[in-house]
């Protein structure tokens, strides 16, 4: 099948408006007769469910958590971008579009990104109307902060809990519809397959995670907003339950999977402390507004610090290497994430890592505390303030901005980041790749949509900070509710979809077979054993830098591990009960397939772009080197084993932006 992105004709700034004007609509009376399933209740799924229900569709929403409010969007910290230009610093729809495409290393679809930038401002209006308590200045107007890879201040935030507040906003919109009976909410339910009838997505098979019951749910369209697949690395900043299953199941039923190798390794996470570690914790990128990243200049100092003979605060300015400021003077500590991560890895690989594992760099707030302290002293008319007073005043400002992050750090590491610099190291955070969708956010299966992090669309090879929240809400509040109507307009006479058909029966049967296999298999190894092994292969060979040899090995190793998994996995307990090991087994089974496709995609992509860094393709200075011939989206078609997947290319055409070398120097 040839890929058709269905991007409308016309100048880029008019495409979305013109398209909306001509799109098919479903009249309000008919919407009552149309059911839509939404899988996942994060920013994308939650906002889509709420909006579709407001429009009048009957929505069934599914979440594996015990409440929609717990989806992992809640953990997003720093903020959400919007081209409001409230700061008057030259922001515009075009500039947000430009920054996002450039930030994504020219590997995203122009028209989608432009639309994203266009609706971004609306998101802020919407969220404020919902009662989201964004940070404000003393004049009562909305405040902004800066994020990596841009030269304006366009990030709206609610302390270090922006994702939480936006998700609770979407959750509140959902609650209103649940109360009206327009959303039927299925908590603690996991989608295990999609049901295709006559080539169209018509329902799902879901498992009730409390009772273990396998349920059939039908609808006229299915929307998957199940998040990213960062947990393929076992250790990531994702929630423990975050998984690829819904996205992978639809891939296996015909939806192409795009750019699986585009993964974001976030530069500022709390370093690993031991083998028992179950997850990694992010420290918001917003910290790079005020924090300065450094390692010691001399290896002797590194050694002294590791052995505890010296403290970081003992080192003078001359003895420190602020390597981001040194290498990228224009953007300094606010280079995009992929650049910052690779730079940290480069220093640590060279032996400058400052903790016992050698995998940590400093994020230092001393300068910011002093700067804010002096500023406050001026504001409060304190002449000749003492050092202590300056520190006190400055600390208060830093605490107001990042207090919850500092507290989180202190609880985990047991060090006070106001007094000693934080230690950070990159960790897997977000996956730009995902299910391929067209301009309508529809996958290659009619009636099957994919939104938010689960799809591949807007971030290319690298996502800029504070853009994930923007995309999730744009998809759910403002894009999908329009585009899905165009498809559903043909379904007004279809009537209720029956679940008593052979398609549902077959799908259910296959789901049950897998579950029965797991609970009956007399294996010797736990699910986590396999997940950790997979994670190690992924991190070592498909991590921050990749090469052909490693990737080829990874493909083989993952394939072997998968075979072993299906022989040796052990799942205690039964199928008709609450059984977390069983749920995990299903998820890891899918990760084991995705992981291989991931490595294959990375191997095929003979270039460096954004988060995908191939050692064979770098500039003499060690920067990522893009290849013109790889200016396409890799969309993989499922053909049984991951190694048999077929590559389809969607060529990327840039008419409104000049493709240049991406420089932050």
């Amino acid at each position: 099948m040839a890929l058709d992105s269905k991007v409308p004709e016309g100048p880029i700034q008019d495409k979305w408006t013109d398209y909306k004007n001509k799109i098919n609509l479903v009249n309000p009376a008919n919407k009552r007769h149309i059911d839509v399933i939404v899988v996942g209740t994060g920013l994308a799924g939650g906002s889509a469910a709420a909006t579709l229900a407001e429009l009048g569709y009957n929505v069934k929403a599914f979440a594996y958590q015990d409440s929609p409010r717990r989806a992992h969007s809640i953990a997003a910290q720093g903020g959400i971008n919007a081209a409001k230009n409230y700061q008057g610093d030259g922001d515009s729809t075009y500039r947000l579009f430009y920054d996002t495409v450039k930030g994504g290393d020219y590997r995203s679809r122009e028209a989608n990104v432009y639309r994203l930038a266009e609706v971004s401002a609306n998101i802020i209006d919407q969220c404020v109307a919902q009662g989201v308590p964004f940070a404000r200045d003393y004049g009562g107007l909305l405040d902004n902060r800066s994020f990596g890879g841009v030269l304006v201040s366009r990030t709206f935030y609610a302390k270090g809990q922006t994702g939480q507040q936006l998700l609770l906003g979407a959750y509140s919109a959902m609650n209103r519809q649940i109360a009206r009976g327009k959303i039927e909410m299925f908590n603690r339910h996991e989608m295990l397959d999609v049901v295709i009838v006559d080539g169209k997505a018509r329902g799902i098979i879901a498992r009730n995670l409390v009772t273990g019951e396998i349920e059939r749910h039908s609808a006229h369209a299915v929307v998957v907003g199940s998040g990213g697949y960062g947990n393929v690395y076992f250790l990531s900043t994702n929630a423990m339950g975050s998984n690829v299953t819904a996205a992978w199941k639809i891939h296996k039923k015909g939806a192409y999977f795009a750019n699986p190798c585009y993964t974001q390794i976030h530069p500022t996470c709390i370093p690993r402390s031991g083998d028992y570690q179950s997850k990694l914790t992010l420290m918001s990128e917003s910290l790079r507004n005020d924090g300065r990243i450094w390692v010691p200049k001399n290896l002797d100092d590194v050694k002294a610090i590791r052995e505890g003979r010296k403290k970081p605060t003992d080192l003078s300015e001359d003895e420190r290497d602020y390597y981001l400021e040194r290498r990228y003077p224009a953007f300094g500590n606010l280079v995009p994430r992929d650049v910052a991560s690779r730079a940290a890895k480069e220093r640590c690989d060279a032996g400058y890592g400052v903790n016992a594992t050698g995998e940590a760099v400093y994020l230092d707030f001393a300068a910011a505390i002093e700067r804010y302290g002096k500023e406050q002293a001026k504001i409060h008319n304190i002449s000749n303030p003492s050092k202590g007073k300056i520190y006190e005043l400055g600390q208060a400002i830093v605490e107001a901005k990042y207090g919850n992050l500092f507290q989180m750090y202190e609880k985990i590491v047991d060090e006070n980041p106001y007094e000693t610099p934080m230690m950070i190291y990159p960790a897997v955070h977000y996956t730009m790749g995902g299910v391929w969708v067209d301009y309508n956010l529809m996958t290659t299966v009619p009636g099957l949509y994919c939104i938010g992090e689960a799809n591949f669309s807007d971030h290319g090879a690298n996502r800029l900070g504070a853009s994930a929240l923007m995309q999730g809400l744009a998809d759910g509040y403002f894009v999908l509710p329009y585009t899905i109507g165009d498809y559903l307009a043909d379904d007004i006479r279809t009537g209720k979809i029956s679940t008593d058909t052979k398609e549902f029966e077959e799908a259910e049967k296959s789901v049950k077979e897998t579950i029965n296999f797991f609970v009956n298999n007399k294996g010797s190894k736990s699910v986590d054993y396999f997940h950790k092994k997979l994670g190690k292969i992924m991190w070592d060979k498909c991590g921050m830098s990749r090469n052909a040899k490693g990737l080829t090995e990874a493909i083989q190793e993952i394939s072997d591990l998968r075979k072993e998994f299906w022989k040796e996995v052990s799942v205690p307990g039964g199928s008709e009960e609450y059984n977390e090991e069983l749920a995990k087994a299903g998820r890891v089974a899918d990760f084991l397939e995705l992981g291989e496709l991931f490595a294959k995609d990375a191997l095929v992509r003979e270039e460096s772009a954004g988060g995908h860094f191939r050692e064979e393709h770098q500039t003499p200075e060690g920067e990522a080197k893009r290849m013109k011939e790889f200016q396409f989206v890799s969309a993989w078609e499922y053909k049984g084993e991951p190694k048999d997947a077929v590559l389809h290319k969607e060529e990327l055409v840039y008419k409104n932006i000049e493709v240049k070398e991406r420089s932050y120097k």
Partner: protein
Amino acid sequence: MNLTLKIWRQKDSNAKGQMVDYKVTEISEHMSFLEMMDVLNEQLVGKGEEPVAFDHDCREGICGMCSMYINGEAHGPDRGITTCQLHMRMFKDGDTITIEPFRAAAFPVIKDLVIDRTAFDRIQHAGGYISVNTSGNTQDANAIPISKHDADEAMDAATCIGCGACVATCKNSSAMLFVGAKVSQYALLPQGQVEAADRVQNMVAQMDLEGFGNCTNTGACEVECPKGISLDNIARMNRELMKAAVK
């Protein structure tokens, strides 16, 4: 360090549960409490036994899923954290740790340490929202200036993660801190004024219907709340309800 764990085991919501003793060895003080539980579960799975079921997800203190009552306190002995942020350095070698689910009649046990908190969702359905459609035609965000003080206070109330520690720790199993926080968030913002009276009345009615107890102002909830939600929010809810009653 080596530890003895006394853990509540309960097969399902209908079964009768009991405390069961376990031993774990070589626990690092840098582990989080849930990583210690992972070690125990890995041990149990290795022996072919059923692991201890417990709720957890983000493991960074924001999703509100984890919910253990550890040594007689919701989320354990540390302050300003959830169970997943509790670290083993708070314990000593040889300690016996009692681990129970959050208890309340409105939070029935599903299995072991997993509880059903959908009562909280139903309270939110009753009014935890502002009735505005996602039409995209709302007024410009800066058309409604809000004093920084009010916005900050609303934010402080809004940081509630809905974990239920307040209920679990309250001797009356009262949900007033949870409800008070949501009522306060909207009561403090101009956007929330239009429906303020209905909201507080409906949410309190649903809270009562769910079988949560009454507040006797012991203040325990505020101390145990991982997000430090202030008791002032309960007072504000009381005020809002009185205002609504005389309206």
